[in-house]
């Protein structure tokens, strides 16, 4: 570790400490927004760990998130909560591993469509299982877990995701993914096991999404498939990550914060126009800032220093 690494680590720890103080404000509304921001930060950052370097756009976040939510929904009456979190991690990893093995040979748009269909399919399967064996569609999740606890759990997961992301970025695996994202043929001909590298990273992001789903389950009290597997979640994660920028570990955060605040503002004043906001954000990404806010910042930084 060099000086810059220590400085970044210090900054990250400071940021985390400040964020952890939010519940002390005693303002329930801020806390609610804080939970949403923390949730999307974790989801978007872990999404970018895989999709950033490889350019495989995954819309499967909702599938893994929903699985995690359902692990808690179905087990909360019989199994300790902490164990359920561990099970959610395992289920997310296994599901992502299977999906990865089956689909990561697909390229470009086929992969995108498959992952979108996957969330829908998982939802149908869960619904089918519930109505055939569970006898009901939804589940009550009644716990004494408070919003503060959810928030702190998410912050802890965020810290882990940043740490894992940083480690991957310095590892051979991270370098392999960069090469795969540039040219998969070259990667294979340079000795990289492309399928394995992609599946490992896809599993990491699937695990995290499932864990987040499990952590948030107590927030909803009543859970049903259409909510847990909402495709909107997948799209929001992609848009926030791209808006911030996926080439830096902290990039998605820069997209999550403004987008969540804007989303809140729009839902309060114009509750029917949230989809419009999503559409506009998407156009903005495609036409104006393909590398996200981070790309923009770095471009102006470079110009300021006079090299570009």
């Amino acid at each position, binding site marked *: 570790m060099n000086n810059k690494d220590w400085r970044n680590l210090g900054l990250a720890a400071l940021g985390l400490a400040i964020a952890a103080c939010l519940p002390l404000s005693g303002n329930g509304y801020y806390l609610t927004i804080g939970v949403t921001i923390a949730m999307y930060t974790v989801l978007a950052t872990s999404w970018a760990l895989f999709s950033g370097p490889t350019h495989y756009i995954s819309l499967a976040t909702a599938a893994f998130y929903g699985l995690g939510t359902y692990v808690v929904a179905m087990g909360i009456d019989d199994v300790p909560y902490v164990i359920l979190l561990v099970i959610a991690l395992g289920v997310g990893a296994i599901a992502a591993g299977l999906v990865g093995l089956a689909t990561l040979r697909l390229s470009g748009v086929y992969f995108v469509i498959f992952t979108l269909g996957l969330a829908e399919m998982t939802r149908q399967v869960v619904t089918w299982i519930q109505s055939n064996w569970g006898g009901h569609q939804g589940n009550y999740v009644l716990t004494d877990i408070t919003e503060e606890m959810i928030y702190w759990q998410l912050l802890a997961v965020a810290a882990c995701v940043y740490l894992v992301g940083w480690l991957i970025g310095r590892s*051979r695996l991270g*370098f*392999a993914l*960069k*090469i795969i*994202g*540039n*040219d998969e*043929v*070259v*990667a*294979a*001909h*340079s*000795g*990289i*096991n*492309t399928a394995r590298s992609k599946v490992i990273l896809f599993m990491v992001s699937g695990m995290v999404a499932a864990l987040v789903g499990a952590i948030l389950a107590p927030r909803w009290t009543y859970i049903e498939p259409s909510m847990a597997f909402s495709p909107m979640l997948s799209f929001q994660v992609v848009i926030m990550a791209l808006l911030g920028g996926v080439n830096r570990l902290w990039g998605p955060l820069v997209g999550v914060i403004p987008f969540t605040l804007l989303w809140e503002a729009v839902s309060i004043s114009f509750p029917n126009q949230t989809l419009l906001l999503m559409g506009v954000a998407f156009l903005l990404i495609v036409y104006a800032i393909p590398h996200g806010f981070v790309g923009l910042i770095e471009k102006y930084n470079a110009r300021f220093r006079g090299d570009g």
Partner: protein
Amino acid sequence: MDKRKILSVRNLTKRFGGLVAVNAMNFDVGEHEVLGLIGPNGSGKTTMMNLISGALKPSSGEISLQGSRISDLPAQDINRKGVARTFQLVRLLPSLNVLDNAIAGAVFGHRQRWGQEAEDYAMQMLERVGLSEQAQAPISKLTYIDQKRLELARVLAGDPKILLLDEWLAGLNPTELETGIELIRDLRGEGRTIILVEHVMDAIRSLCDRCVVMNSGVKIAEGTPAEVLADHEVIRAYLGDEDA
């Protein structure tokens, strides 16, 4: 053949639907040998290279490296066993700089290095091909021959036993061509085993120990460059019946 065999191609056939691109090919490559794979356009040379590197799977027949079969392995395993290639149309990694492109070849290949060691070795390879000055430059700043050099540096960085150069000299202007031939001659001098697909006759004459000539997927001649270039069937394949 008196040299020790390092690569053997036996009865190798590749069909694309009804088209037989490579038809029952047989040849050996000796250690430290430079073998030219030549023939008119569409004769199956690049398909042959793709079969050796693992980019394509043969329909039948086999390729073995030092006695062990490699033709059913995926490309990454073949690369790790020591067969590395360049591409007919240069393939670089545009989001990485020159040095990182070279390091990409050093980390996962036949001889694997990481960290400072990989960087040092990649840097040596850049020096080797004459690109060390531009180590920190982005790919977009490179001229065509420099792109080709960089691809060669990436391939060399994995310390391969066998180098496959697919028309590495194509598209260079006369001065660049001279530099290019010189560079391959140096590699030859280091005792590397090289298979090259080439159209440039000067390069074939001055670089190759032996040539295998293909036409319509079959081997029509094999021997020293002088022998095969004087061969009637080879001349007919290149120039047509009337001129032979």
